[in-house]
């Protein structure tokens, strides 16, 4: 009798484990199905098979002298604060790769918001303002932030070739005593 009860207990435990595993597989499969369906329809969905683009990179962030007669570098150029200010003064577009909240708290005057992590939302608004050969300045928070470089890589893959990343970002801008705009463009 004792042996029978022990066998019944083992069977019960086995059934519990089996049921838990079945339920877990069912739950994970339903969640995966919904996740992929949602990813396919939402604007910021990603292609799981995307590969990082191979982009020629040039580092001029130290303020190296440039040959103004040479053809522009095709790819990503890391630039200094001085060169970044030249882009602003020339009226070329400048993209802020940070979040909308960070942008509203303070951004470089004239910068256009283009959150790297919500490209699907911002590209339809931003891309019509850009031409493929146009010099485009991009920045994010500072040297430790790579969102500006990642955004530049995405732009390169869709045909924009003259991309200037100001890696000093907002931190170097404010350290230099330069002003920021808040909200959608009020000077601070």
């Amino acid at each position, binding site marked *: 009798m004792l042996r029978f009860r022990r066998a019944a207990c083992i069977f019960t435990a086995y059934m519990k484990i089996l049921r838990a595993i*079945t*339920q877990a597989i069912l739950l994970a499969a339903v969640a*995966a199905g919904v996740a992929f369906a949602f990813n396919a329809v939402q604007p*910021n969905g990603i292609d*799981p*098979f*995307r590969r990082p683009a191979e982009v020629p990179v040039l580092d001029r962030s130290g303020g190296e002298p440039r040959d103004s007669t040479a053809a522009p570098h095709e790819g990503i150029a890391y630039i200094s604060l001085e060169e970044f200010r030249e882009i602003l003064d020339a009226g070329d577009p400048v993209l802020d790769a940070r979040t909308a909240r960070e942008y509203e708290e303070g951004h470089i005057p004239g910068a256009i918001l283009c959150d790297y992590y919500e490209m699907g939302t911002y590209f339809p608004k931003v891309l019509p303002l850009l031409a493929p050969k146009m010099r485009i300045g991009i920045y994010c928070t500072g040297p430790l932030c790579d969102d500006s470089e990642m955004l530049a890589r995405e732009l390169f893959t869709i045909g924009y070739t003259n991309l200037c990343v100001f890696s000093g970002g907002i931190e170097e801008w404010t350290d230099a005593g330069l002003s920021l705009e808040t909200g959608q463009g009020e000077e601070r």
Partner: protein
Amino acid sequence: MTTGRGSLADLLFERGGPGRGERLWPPLSNRWFILACRLLLAAVFIYAAVQKIGRPLLFADEIEMYRILGHGPVLYMLAIILPWIELFCGISLLTGVLMRGSALVLAVVNVIFIVVVAYRSAAIMNAEAIPLHRVFFDCGCGFGPTYAWRKLIEDSVFFFCALMVLAAPVYRLVPGWRKG
């Protein structure tokens, strides 16, 4: 403990109460304790999921910072699926549908979280020559930057709660309500 008879309803829902002869650790038979574990897990994982759903690229970058998975299909699929698994598990714990399965998933997920947070903490400790209690980073969990030791304790508590729900014989949203 009533075991399943093979129907879909039996798979989706659990019938309550320990079987004859089942000896339980006292907290396991305390339906209020189990309910508290369920609500805690549901609140935490639904909140965490909502923070990540809709921004898969950000979540992929956060996972990549652990330096375990490089950029590639596995990383991106994980970034797409994991928040939804967390959301479904949270809803399951609230509603009582597929309860045991979601508790099992969360137990496994939390073990993985503990291992990877410990791995990342060790890497930061080595790189910056600082002790564990000073390791501060964004774990990508949806709650912002935190101390590694605090995250390890939280994940251990969640793992314990998931095990409690997994092992408990009573599965109802409201204690006292009996299905069937």
